[in-house]
C-alpha cells in the first residue's frame, strides 16, 4: 500500500518537475487571457454600440470577435502546455468544420424562434420589443416599460405576431353615425382626411371607406388605409382625432350607446276609486308579476354601437 502511494507521489513529482512550469504558464495565459478578453469585450461593446443602432448586428460582431479571441487564448495555452502546434491547429480546424456541418445538417430540424432581437412582436397577450434571446428564455420589453422573460417553450407553442415581416399595416377606424343622410358626407370626410395625411400610403391599397352595416338604427362607417408599421399607432390616433373633430364641425351626429328601460310597478297602479277607471284596472291586470327585489329592468343595452 505504502509502496503504491510512494510510487504515485514519485510520478506526480516527476510530472510536476517536467511540466510544472509549463502548466503554470498555461494557466496564467488562460486566466490572464480570459480576464483581458472580458475587458476588451466591454470596451468593444461600448465602441460598437456608439457606431451602430442595429443591436442584432452589433451582437453578431461581438460574438465573432469573442470566439476568435477565445480560440487564440486556448491555442496559446495548449501550445505552452507542450502540445504540438500542428496538432492543435488541426484539432481547431476539425472542431470548426464539425460544428459547421452539424449546424448545416440539423438546422432545418432545430426549432427557431420566429423573430430576431429588436423586432416588435406579440406573444400571446404580450406586445413589445425583443431585447435578447437565450437557449432558455426570451427577454421582451413591453411598451409600458416592463421587462418580461418569456420561456422559449411557451413562445414555440403559442401564436406569435411579428410586425417586422411586413413593412406596412392596415389601419381600421369604425365610426357609428346616427343618420342615413350623413353617409355620403361622412364617407367624403373620412376619405379626404386619410388621403391628405402624409403617412397614409397608396400601396398596397388606397384608403377607402365602407358603409359596414345598419344595426339598431345606427350606420357603421369603416375607414381602411395602409400605413408603415412604425407609424401605425400615432397615425391611428391622429386620424381618429381629425375625423371626430371634422364630423363635429360638419354637424354629423355620432350614434350613441342606447339604453331602453321598461318600468314594472311592484304594486298595482293606485286608482282613485275602484271601478271608476276600467282602463287602468285592465292595465294593472295585464302587468307581469313583479319580482321581489327589482322594480325595473334594462331590456336592451347594446355595446356594439
Amino acid at each position, binding site marked *: 500500500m505504502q509502496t503504491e502511494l510512494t510510487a504515485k507521489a514519485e510520478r506526480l513529482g516527476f510530472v510536476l518537475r517536467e511540466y510544472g512550469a509549463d502548466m503554470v504558464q498555461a494557466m496564467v495565459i488562460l486566466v490572464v487571457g480570459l480576464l483581458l478578453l472580458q475587458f476588451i469585450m466591454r470596451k468593444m461593446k461600448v465602441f460598437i454600440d456608439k457606431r451602430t443602432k442595429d443591436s442584432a448586428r452589433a451582437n453578431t460582431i461581438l460574438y465573432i470577435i469573442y470566439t476568435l479571441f477565445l480560440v487564440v487564448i486556448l491555442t496559446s495555452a495548449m501550445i505552452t502546455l507542450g502540445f504540438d502546434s500542428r496538432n492543435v491547429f488541426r484539432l481547431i480546424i476539425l472542431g470548426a468544420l464539425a460544428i459547421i456541418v452539424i449546424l448545416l445538417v440539423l438546422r432545418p430540424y432545430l426549432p427557431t424562434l420566429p423573430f430576431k432581437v429588436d423586432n416588435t412582436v406579440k406573444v400571446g397577450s404580450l406586445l413589445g420589443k425583443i431585447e435578447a434571446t437565450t437557449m432558455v428564455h426570451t427577454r421582451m420589453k413591453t411598451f409600458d416599460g416592463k421587462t418580461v422573460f418569456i420561456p422559449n417553450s411557451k413562445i414555440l407553442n403559442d401564436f406569435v405576431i411579428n410586425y417586422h415581416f411586413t413593412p406596412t399595416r392596415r389601419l381600421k377606424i369604425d365610426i357609428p353615425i346616427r343618420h342615413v343622410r350623413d353617409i355620403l358626407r361622412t364617407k367624403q370626410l373620412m376619405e379626404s382626411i386619410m*388621403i391628405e395625411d*402624409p403617412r397614409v400610403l397608396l400601396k398596397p391599397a388606397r384608403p377607402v371607406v365602407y358603409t359596414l352595416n345598419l344595426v339598431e338604427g345606427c350606420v357603421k362607417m369603416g375607414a381602411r388605409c395602409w400605413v408603415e408599421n412604425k407609424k401605425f399607432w400615432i397615425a391611428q390616433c391622429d386620424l381618429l382625432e381629425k375625423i371626430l*373633430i371634422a364630423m363635429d364641425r360638419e354637424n354629423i351626429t355620432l350614434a350613441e350607446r342606447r339604453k331602453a328601460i321598461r318600468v314594472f310597478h311592484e304594486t298595482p297602479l293606485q286608482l282613485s276609486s275602484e271601478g271608476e277607471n276600467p282602463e287602468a284596472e285592465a292595465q294593472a291586470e295585464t302587468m307581469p308579476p313583479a319580482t321581489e327585489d327589482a322594480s325595473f329592468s334594462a331590456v336592451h343595452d347594446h355595446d356594439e354601437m
Partner: protein
Amino acid sequence: MKITEAIKIIDDNWIVKPKGFRVCMQRREGSEWVIDYTPGEKAAPLDSDVTTWRTAWKLASSTPLREGEPQEGDLVNLYVVDQDNNPVDYYATGKRETFNAYSV
C-alpha cells in the same frame, strides 16, 4: 379612359398630399423679427399635422404675448406650413389659424 389613367388624375388633382409639416413663426432678435421654423428647414419635417399644430400651440402658450414693447426671444404669428412653405389649415377649425397673432 383606362382605370389607371382615371386614378392618376384623381391622385394628381383631387387632394395633394403634403410631404411634411413645420411650425413657422417670427422670433424677436435684437430689434428685428426673424422668420424661424421648427423643425428647421434643413431638418426633416414632421409627418403629423396634429403633432405640428400641438407643438405650435405649446410654443405659443410658452411665450404668450406681453403688453408693451416686444422683447428678445418673443415668438409671434405661429402657424403650420407644409414642405413648400404653404400655410396649412388647422384641422380643428378647418380654417387658417395663427397663434400669438401680432401685427409686425
